[in-house]
């Protein structure tokens, strides 16, 4: 595409009162703007028409709008051109720096030139469109999998449902009662899984394969090849997206000897009790006599560092449920529940109230200190109860409310043929859940979504809803992938990194560092791109020491050229700094600082990156040899509570920087000239301090010796 660059410099919103806009226009003309215009309000009707006319009649196809933040006025500047760039003269210049000051003017000029360089180095991306499968593969035929399969089918998708056991239904198929899911939230419900399993079998869009396991899944979203093994043999099926719905298993009670398990057959688990209820009478396994007194021990192995440190969320309500049906069947029976905190959130409180209304159910807070079997009874000792500090209970039957362990703890299940490993990556305790509060379905493998109790402990009502959510994400992924577009968080981005493999040294950094396991390797270690797995963060680009990875609209050369374009003053008292910032957090934080009219040094030029993980060390070298005094990188918080939307981008950046700082030391350049800080989006008030402190600290080193060379 032959570019015709139009540069449009707005003087509205205080820009014209702060900057010499005519001088800026002259700079734009000198630096490559073929059409350069100024106007007091480009977002208004007249200004907008001016722009539209240049595109329609003057052949302008590459537009630089130097006005407000790229986050503002997006509707007004939705112009149909292949290349559009916004230069932020409002929030980042006029609103945050001294008006009519030579340094402010220089800042604006640099930003304008950097914007022009950016479009000069950009080509329109060509979407990677392939003929994809839109089949949704659901792994696991319990309530979650059955619900997800039905939901996806009812939204129009073809579905393949794989179940390990010979029949659908999961553990709920063997449950007597389920928790209430609707108002008044007091009544036990019959598990709905059997009815749903019938609907699945009757649905022409769903193919059910039972007695099956996944041998291998190769490929990428839209192009997965799942090898399914059954007694009949192996079959490879092309599918588009995957819902992992293999659920959880009860915690192994044989590890709970301290709660009496194994000491008597009359100490059973909640699952044992449920099975007993389906079969008939609630009795003591030791002598098959009707259980007249039943005691539940909550958090059996849960909320316990030695076993499961987390809470399994449903055991309190499950024990209440079981107490209720024991009492329904045998009104003479007495039930005691010893809990640590009664966790029945929301409308679960109504269910708890119903149990409290029953005089045959005694509920007490307490910590169980010992369980012993003697004289045909079970003795349970507890401390810190509502009855007193040390209490002994006696019961015919003791039920341990054991927690949930995700099935992903036991095996990788999906057996992904991915360079980074066969499993869907899990976080703490083996749950393949999302780390993001705002985006609970985000996994580190594009097109694969976990749902139900494999993802987090939850009750049936939540499972059904969760299955619907995961089905939606699977369908949405295929809708976007079919158009060559990225999924969250860069939804709709149709760029894709090109690899100039002739120069690849097989160092494997890109294949190791991709947060989403996008790249596989051939035998030699050369990366094999899987475009539909890619999330377009650019971490591979930052990782590559040979600089052979680039996007059409985002590249090492582009950022390096922008750095080169920065003006370094001959005046030694006028330092210039580079700032590389995360476009999702630090950039908006700078906007908010502008909106609050907070002032900071005009000597730093910020370049927004898709993710700080895209930072290539060559940019540091570029900045230093250019004579810039220092580089400040502002990224998202990393560590346990990471906020990086690309999982580990900012962390990878900090690791890379620790290495470059060694190099700087060897060059006898102070490593303190490069600093990375973590900043959350709401901490805009700290920005001036961060910038000014850095500049102050680097001043100590004296001018960069490369300056003027």
């Amino acid at each position, binding site marked *: 595409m032959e570019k015709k660059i139009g540069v449009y410099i707005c003087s*509205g*919103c205080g820009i014209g009162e702060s900057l010499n806009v005519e001088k800026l226009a002259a700079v734009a003309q000198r630096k490559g703007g073929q059409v350069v215009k100024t106007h007091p309000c480009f977002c208004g009707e007249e200004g907008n028409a001016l722009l539209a006319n240049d595109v329609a009649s003057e052949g302008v196809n590459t537009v630089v709008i130097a006005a407000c933040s790229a986050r503002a006025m997006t509707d007004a500047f939705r112009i149909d051109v292949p290349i559009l760039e916004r230069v932020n003269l409002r929030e980042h210049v006029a609103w945050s720096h001294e008006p009519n000051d030579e340094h402010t003017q220089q800042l604006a000029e640099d930003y304008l030139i950097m914007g022009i360089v950016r479009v000069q180095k950009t080509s329109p991306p060509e979407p990677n469109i392939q003929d994809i499968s839109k089949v949704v593969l659901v792994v696991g035929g319990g309530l979650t999998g059955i619900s997800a399969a039905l939901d996806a089918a009812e939204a129009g998708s073809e579905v393949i449902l794989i179940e390990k056991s010979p029949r659908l239904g999961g553990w709920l198929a063997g449950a007597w009662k389920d928790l209430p899911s609707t108002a008044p939230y007091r009544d036990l419900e019959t598990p709905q899984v059997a009815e749903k399993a019938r609907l699945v079998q009757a649905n022409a869009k769903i193919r059910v394969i039972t007695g099956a396991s996944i041998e291998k899944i190769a490929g990428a979203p839209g192009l997965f090849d799942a090898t399914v093994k059954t007694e009949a043999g192996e079959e490879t099926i092309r599918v588009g997206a995957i819902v992992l719905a293999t659920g959880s298993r009860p915690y192994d009670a044989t590890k709970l000897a301290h709660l009496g398990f194994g000491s008597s057959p009359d100490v059973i688990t909640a699952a044992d009790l449920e099975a007993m209820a389906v079969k008939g009478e609630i009795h003591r396994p030791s002598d098959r006599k009707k259980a007249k007194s039943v005691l539940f021990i909550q958090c059996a192995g849960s909320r316990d560092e030695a076993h499961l440190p987390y809470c399994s969320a449903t055991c309190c309500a499950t024990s209440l449920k079981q107490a209720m049906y024991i009492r329904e069947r045998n009104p003479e029976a007495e039930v005691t529940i010893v809990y640590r*905190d009664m966790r029945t959130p929301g409308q679960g409180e109504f269910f708890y109230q119903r149990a409290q209304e029953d005089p045959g159910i005694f509920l007490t807070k307490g910590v169980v200190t010992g369980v012993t079997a003697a004289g045909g009874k079970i003795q349970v000792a507890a401390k810190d109860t509502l009855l007193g500090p040390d209490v002994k209970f006696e019961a015919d039957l003791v039920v341990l409310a054991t927690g949930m362990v995700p099935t992903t703890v036991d095996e990788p299940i999906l057996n992904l043929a991915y360079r980074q490993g066969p499993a869907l990556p899990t976080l703490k305790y083996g749950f393949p859940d999302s780390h993001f509060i705002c985006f609970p379905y985000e996994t580190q493998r594009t097109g694969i979504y976990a749902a139900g109790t494999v993802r987090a402990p939850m009750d049936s009502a939540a499972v059904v*809803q969760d299955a*619907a*959510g995961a089905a939606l*994400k699977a369908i949405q992924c295929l809708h976007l992938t079919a158009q060559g577009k990225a999924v969250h968080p860069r939804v709709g981005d149709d760029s894709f990194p090109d690899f100039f493999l002739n120069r690849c040294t097989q160092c494997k950094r890109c294949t190791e560092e991709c947060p989403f396991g996008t790249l596989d390797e051939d035998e030699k270690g050369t990366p094999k791109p899987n475009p539909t797995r890619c999330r377009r963060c650019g971490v591979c680009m930052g990782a590559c020491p040979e600089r052979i990875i680039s996007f059409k609209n985002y590249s090492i050369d582009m950022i390096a050229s922008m750095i080169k374009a920065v003006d370094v003053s001959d005046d030694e008292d006028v330092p210039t700094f580079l700032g590389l910032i995360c476009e999702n957090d630090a950039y908006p934080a700078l906007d908010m600082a502008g909106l609050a009219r907070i002032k900071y040094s005009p000597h730093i030029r910020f370049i927004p990156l898709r993710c700080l993980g895209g930072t290539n060390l060559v940019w540091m070298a570029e900045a230093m040899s250019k004579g810039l005094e220092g580089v400040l990188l502002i990224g998202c918080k990393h560590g346990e509570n990471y906020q990086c939307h690309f999982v580990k981008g900012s962390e990878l950046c900090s690791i890379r920087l620790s290495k470059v700082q060694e190099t700087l030391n060897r060059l006898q350049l102070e490593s303190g000239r490069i600093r990375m800080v973590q900043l959350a989006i*709401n901490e805009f*008030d700290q920005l001036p301090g961060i910038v000014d402190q850095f500049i102050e600290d680097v001043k100590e080193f004296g001018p960069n010796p490369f300056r003027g060379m």
Partner: protein
Amino acid sequence: MTEQQAAQQTKAVLVVGGGIGGLTVAVETAEAGWPVVVVEKNAFVGGRVAANHLYFPKMCPPTCGLEINFQRLRKNPAIKILTLAEVTKVSGGAKDAVATVTVKPRYVNEKCTACGKCIEVCPVSRPDAFNAGLGTTKAVYLAHAMAHPQRLVIDGSVCLGKSCGKCATVCPYGAIDLDMKERTLEIPVGAMAVATGWLPYDAKRIDTLGFGTSKNVITNAMMERLAAPSGVTGGKIQRPSDGAAPKRVIFVQCAGSRDRLHLPYCSAVCCLASLKQAGYVRAQHPDAEITMCYIDVRAPGKLEDFSVKAQAEHNITMLKGKVAKVTENAATGEVTVEVEDILGGGIRRLTADLVVLATGMPPATTGLPGVAYDTNGFATGPSGAVPVFAVGCAKKPLDVAGTVQDATGVALKAIQAMARS
């Protein structure tokens, strides 16, 4: 094309409420290829989460996820947002449903650049609802720095109108339109998602807990705004009576929740929210003594980790017991909390500089046309033929992750209904 014509072009998923639940339904539905209209009662989307300082358990700012969601909104022409709008009528059946939406005048048109010149000259102040009433804004205002759409609004109930007109005179862009009128739109709808969210329970109704009479008794919603850098104190947690740094802080759990006289249900998030807010206090005042009076600490799933960590901090005392009474010594500003110590026995009297009531989250709206509600005001589904799905806190008390999870599932249900309609 008029706004009405644009609205009628295609049948849409109508999302009522533009908080985190509604926005999630909107972006998830639209990114799967279906058109959406969001009807938001306030002048800005973002809802209650925008006013929170940090989320538990990560202690990360809500604006981080909102920013991503706003980017998704801005990019997606399939999503139309109507602010200052309410659904007044739903008619037709499953295949030909039409929602009538009334849009109140904003008095500021789309030419507004949020430059703020009008705010400087506006002579009228109003209580700042976004800051939980802790400060004021002018009659023309932007709710907060991340407000979306980034366009000012004039509060017509306090604006002096054309007799003043200073804002219109000073605006360089012709963005002020004091003649703007209410308008009505008819929108063809394939499914309706009710994401009307929650309203903090009015703490004044719990007359034993001293809110409204004792200055140093605040609600958890107010604590969020005290701790936020964008709040009225610039993020400083201080006693409202004299601005002093609090040395003793008491959190009163279940303030109105799990209480048959007020909210008979549990609000599900308050335990964790208070443990989080204890963290706010500790970050600024490391030596402050914090006490949390609770009935049960409800921290399901992995949130247990957060709860354990927060309770293990050196300066927090967990006291199992329901608070009976809160009184303030008007002269010193000191607050006395009477609480039944369930494990230790007896009534204890504790004093504090600042008391935070963990008020619950009842549903904000009942009585929307086409929607069925239970006796507690939670939306349950359709009341007629038009497919209706309740989302998030309109359905049950939920935290943010739970709301977003729920909303994503609703997006699928809405798509199914669209495919059928």
